């Protein structure tokens, strides 16, 4: 839908060329497109409207939109800048000063509080040289305390729990005292998930907050949350006056419009981004990346990160040696394919690369793109996979019938493979890159 937001804006604004300036009337369509894109990204409807009104004012005040070579892109840039600014502001880190510093973690059921608590503890221990104490205050959900216990063990952080006590206010109080006597400088309190409409539970967390006076209260929210994000955040903020927001499960493909909605509605900074179940993946929040994501404009940084996640240094070294010797074989190729596949589905990966969405929108790329290649390689013998050069006519014939392709297709594939191999060899020899680029019609500049 918004992969082509800038295109849509392009065509909406194209008709205006010749008009001397933007007017409320002639950008009405563009504003509507922007609003639709935001709504499809789960930005709250009302906020999308208010936000686009702002954009409208901004656009009307911008002289050169229509004169721009690509007015649509300029409009998108205005939107993006405005959104980045809105979500940014003073991201002040978390306050863990105090003796001990106390972090209260709150949120709805299933938002990822416990996993986040574990990640935060690890982060503080490894990166900030703190001595954190995890506190299990979810006395309701079955095995919630066990879950935190397991996480605590995994990261080597002590946990405070009272399995018989059903009063989280008492537990949290006792935990803070325990931390004082045992010289823990940060206490992280994991609470039960609660619905904002559950008066009793909301009262409970209010009581916890009042009794322990945390230095930092965080609201954890699932980045896939829809229109309701605003209401929930508003109620939690009303009751807890939280200091910051944690956005979880950003490793999915959600546009994450909730981030904009919440920041807009309660004005509190987004302090952490948590993606994945690995306890290392706690990240600070980048408003510009989030803006691009909401607008479906690709996120090159995430792309690189995902690639790095799959990157294995030793394997890369091994491959480089093989490439230099021109020994790159079908097994290596298959390994590479699998690595790419592990990064996510191809189309969503492509869309992470800015500008790529334009190219991919009409092409139906799916993960079956590799099926043919895989079938061919799988039809080879071990010897053939390791020594591409031994492929003669009779072997090719056998592979063709084995993989359900004709001999022509096999030849094509092998030819492509050879080309790729020699290209890689050229590039790996250093001088290669320049030479390689010279042959390209449009040498990219940076």
């Amino acid at each position, binding site marked *: 839908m918004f992969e082509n937001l800038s295109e849509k804006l392009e065509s909406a604004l194209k008709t205006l060329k010749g008009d001397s300036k933007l007017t409320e009337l002639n950008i009405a369509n563009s504003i509507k497109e922007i609003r639709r894109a935001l709504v499809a990204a789960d930005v709250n409807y009302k906020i999308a409207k208010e936000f686009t009104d702002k954009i409208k004012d901004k656009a009307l005040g911008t002289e050169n939109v229509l004169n721009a070579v690509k007015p649509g892109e300029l409009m998108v840039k205005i939107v993006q800048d405005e959104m980045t600014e809105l979500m940014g502001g003073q991201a002040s880190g978390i306050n863990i000063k105090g003796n001990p510093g106390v972090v209260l973690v709150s949120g709805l059921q299933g938002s990822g509080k416990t996993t986040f608590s574990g990640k935060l503890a690890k982060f503080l221990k490894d990166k900030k040289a703190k001595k954190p104490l995890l506190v299990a205050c979810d006395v309701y959900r079955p095995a919630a305390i066990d879950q935190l216990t397991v996480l605590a063990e995994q990261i080597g952080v002590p946990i405070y729990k009272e399995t018989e006590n059903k009063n989280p206010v008492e537990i949290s109080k006792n935990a803070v005292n325990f931390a004082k006597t045992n010289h823990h400088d940060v206490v992280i309190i994991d609470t039960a998930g609660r619905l904002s409409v559950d008066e009793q539970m909301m009262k409970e967390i209010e009581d916890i907050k009042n009794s322990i006076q945390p230095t930092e209260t965080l609201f954890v929210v699932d980045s896939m949350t829809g229109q309701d994000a605003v209401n929930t955040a508003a109620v939690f903020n009303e009751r807890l006056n939280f200091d910051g927001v944690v956005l979880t499960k950003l*490793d999915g493909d959600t546009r994450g419009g909730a981030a904009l909605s919440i920041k807009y509605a309660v004005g509190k900074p987004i302090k952490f981004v948590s993606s994945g179940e690995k306890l290392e993946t706690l990240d600070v929040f980048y408003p510009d990346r989030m803006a691009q994501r909401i607008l479906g404009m690709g996120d090159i940084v995430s792309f690189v990160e995902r690639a790095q996640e799959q990157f294995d240094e030793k394997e890369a070294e091994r491959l480089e040696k093989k490439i230099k010797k021109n020994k790159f074989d079908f097994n290596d190729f298959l390994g590479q394919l699998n690595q790419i596949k592990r990064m996510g589905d191809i189309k969503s990966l492509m869309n992470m690369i800015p500008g790529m969405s334009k190219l991919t929108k009409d092409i139906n790329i799916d993960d079956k793109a590799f099926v043919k290649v895989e079938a061919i390689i799988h039809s080879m013998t071990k010897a053939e996979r390791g020594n591409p050069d031994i492929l003669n006519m009779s072997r090719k014939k056998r592979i063709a019938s084995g993989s359900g392709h004709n001999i022509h297709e096999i030849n094509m594939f092998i030819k492509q493979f050879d080309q790729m191999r020699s290209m890689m060899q050229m590039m790996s020899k250093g001088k290669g890159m320049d030479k390689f680029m010279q042959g390209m019609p449009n040498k990219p500049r940076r």
Partner: protein
Amino acid sequence: MSFFKKFFSKDKEEDLNKGLEKTKSSIFSQITKAVAGKSKVDVEFLDQLENILISSDVGLDTTVKIIDRLEAKVAEDKYLNTDELNSILKKVIIDILSENNTVDIEDFDPPTGTHPYIIMVVGVNGVGKTTTIGKLANQYHKKGYKVVLGAADTFRAAAVDQLKIWAERSSSAFFSKGMNTDPAAVAYETTQYAQNNGMDIAIIDTAGRLHTKIQLMDELSKIKRSIDKKYQGAPHEVLLVLDATTGQNAIEQAKHFTAATNVTALALTKLDGSAKGGVVLGISDQFKIPIKYIGVGEGMEQLQVFNKRAFVESLFS
């Protein structure tokens, strides 16, 4: 109303009404307000309807569909008053929910002809899979079925313990091979356990996973295949659990989980919160998968079979 009563005992009805109170007051009372005093559907009303549907997570496409149909109906049926408009709108929504050609189940009974009946439960992290399984087991148990719960979420910390507690609470049998074991093997052996021990129903829990993680989705397909290997044709039900709080991403979830496991039914959880649950309309509409259960509270009893007519009725009542 009699139709409504047929499926819901008094307290169930109250739960549903309570659970949907928010939805009701925010969506449909607003519509009623918008309609009141107007003798026809004007642009202002449609605009407002659009706002309301979208802010209930119905999604752009389905919203447009509802509005188009409403307009077409209105053009056909000519004059309208508030009541008529309300019932037309209701009908349009029920129709959309009905297009998946499924009949609502009436109670917690597995279909006959498949014994034991194997259910595999899937979904992203934190939607409430395990809780839904516990509540579902409880309902089946109350109806006299013998149920075994299979702990194939061997990944998330303490997931096995959590399911075990639910097995105890719901008086179900429990099958586990412990944490960090092969989930496909657990699924296979749970099926075997159900077959060998005269169980009526096996419900297999799986680890929450984001639908974008290909390896994990492949693993899910494998779990499903391993069940089929033990018992051809099983699982008979692949239940995708969706969180009512989730926005448009739920549609992506439905798409990918269906691709990996051929989802046959949906459960919508956390409807007792302030989220509107409008996502149901969009998914039922696009994927033709029936909603089978709704979670309307934290209590053990607060899982209900979904009934579209009752659902929409209760929204308007």
